[in-house]
């Protein structure tokens, strides 16, 4: 099966004031079309650098990043991004915020069709009736929902999620996880999710990649079995507990706290 995203043996070093800082050293990530890959790893290991590579905002020193078989050499219109900071534009309504990417990317849709699509997405994430509100009138979770709509409006091939739920409280976060599954069923996408939350990674993704400490290489890959429609109950099964244990151990290895042990 051909992979939509193929990151092969990527190495990158930042030149900082205090000398060269290697951030990536042997990164391997493959995401099939329609796949959902979560990337976890210790703080500051280079996870966000990975998102910039896929978005074409950063070209690696060595190795290559392919999206849809084409080498990434710069920004392309086929990605959507959502960050921990929802970065909505305060002077625009929610609807106009969602429409922003369509002002940059060429689209065959008419103005009304664009607006209809934005309204449909907003309704899908539960923001019906908030189209004409300003971002300052929305809660943190609602802003993230709007930000998600903006990242999907132009039907990107790749959705890049850089800890989008990181700043939310636990209940809001779980709500948004379920919203993600709902959105994916209606608007299929291929996603790379950066997260610190192991439960989030196994709830949302079908593959979890653990990165080592800096400079980051791919240390471990876990396949999350397909159990059909996922509900929060799935997080409290023995299988989930086992996956979380394995991931927790791998993170501790990545942090250099314990030596690697053989696990299933």
């Amino acid at each position, binding site marked *: 099966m051909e992979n939509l995203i193929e990151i092969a043996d990527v190495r990158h070093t930042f030149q900082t004031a205090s000398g060269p800082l290697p951030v990536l050293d042997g990164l391997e990530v493959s995401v099939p079309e329609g796949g959902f890959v979560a990337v976890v790893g210790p703080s500051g290991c280079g996870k966000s650098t990975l998102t910039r590579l896929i978005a074409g905002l950063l070209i690696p020193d060595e190795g290559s990043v392919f999206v849809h078989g084409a080498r990434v050499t710069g920004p392309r219109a086929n990605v959507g991004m959502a960050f921990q900071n929802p970065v909505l534009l305060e002077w625009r309504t929610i609807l106009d915020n969602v429409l922003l990417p369509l002002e940059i990317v060429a689209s065959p849709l008419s103005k009304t069709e664009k607006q209809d699509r934005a309204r449909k997405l907003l309704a899908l994430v539960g923001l019906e009736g908030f189209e004409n509100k*300003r971002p300052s009138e929305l809660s943190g979770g609602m802003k993230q929902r709007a930000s998600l709509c*903006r990242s999907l409006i132009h039907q990107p091939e790749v959705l890049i999620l850089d800890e989008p739920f990181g700043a939310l409280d636990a209940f809001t976060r779980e709500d948004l996880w379920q919203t993600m599954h709902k959105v994916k069923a209606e608007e299929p996408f291929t996603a790379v999710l950066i997260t610190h939350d192991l439960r989030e990674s196994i709830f949302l993704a079908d593959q979890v990649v653990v990165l080592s400490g800096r400079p980051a290489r791919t240390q471990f890959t876990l396949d999350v079995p397909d159990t059909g429609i996922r509900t929060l109950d799935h997080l409290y099964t023995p299988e989930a507990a086992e996956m979380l244990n394995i991931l927790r151990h791998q993170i501790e290895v990545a942090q250099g706290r314990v030596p690697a042990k053989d696990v299933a």
Partner: protein
Amino acid sequence: MTAQKILVPTAAIIVFLILWELLVWAMGWPNFRMASPSDLLPAYERYWELFLTMGWQTLWRTVVGLLLAVIFGTALGMVMGFSRVMRDALYPLLVGFNAVPKATVVPIVALMFVGWHDFNTILIAFMISFFPIAVSVSIGLSTLEPEYRDILRALGASQSQIFWKIALPKTLPEFFGALKVSVTLAFIGTNLMEIVSPHGRGLGALFDSGKTNSDYPLMFAVLIALAFLGIVLYYIVVALEKTFAGWADRSA
């Protein structure tokens, strides 16, 4: 609500004038020490034509100087906001320039461009008022969170698209904050030149002629006229701010 917004400040001004009148009356000050509001009315009555023409002179030169400051200050702020090197290079120069008291520059400019009365007045109004605008625009642009940029850059947006769609509107609240400071500074600049420059025009020159003729009520009348013009200009800026950056106001 609107009635309250007009009535309350008006009442405050009336109370202020009454207190001023009472103070002068109670202290028994003669005119040359401090004129009272009741002395000003005859001055306005006698010279109303002069107040209109001179007030207009002061107003249009201040506004032109301020417009130049907005254009130049914004351009300079953009250069410093987008380029770290330019920021490092220009900041000391700019701060040094701003630290020089403009009262010392006025006679120099008056001599350099002697006879070009409109020009040197506008020049001083401009010189005194562009600094806050340049600084606020550069800070607004340089503190733009990288995510804002990335969201458009990842889609292949150009620098100018990022500027017009995100950087510029996001800087507007800071810009208007600076403009409110600049508008009063520009007034000071205009009047400095009008007072110092020989054969000057404008309210500053009227003040100067009041001084030469020992017409103390006239001098105080000019001060009040200046205050009035300053208030008018300030509220024009506030109205513009409401129109273009009203979204930043969270009190509503």
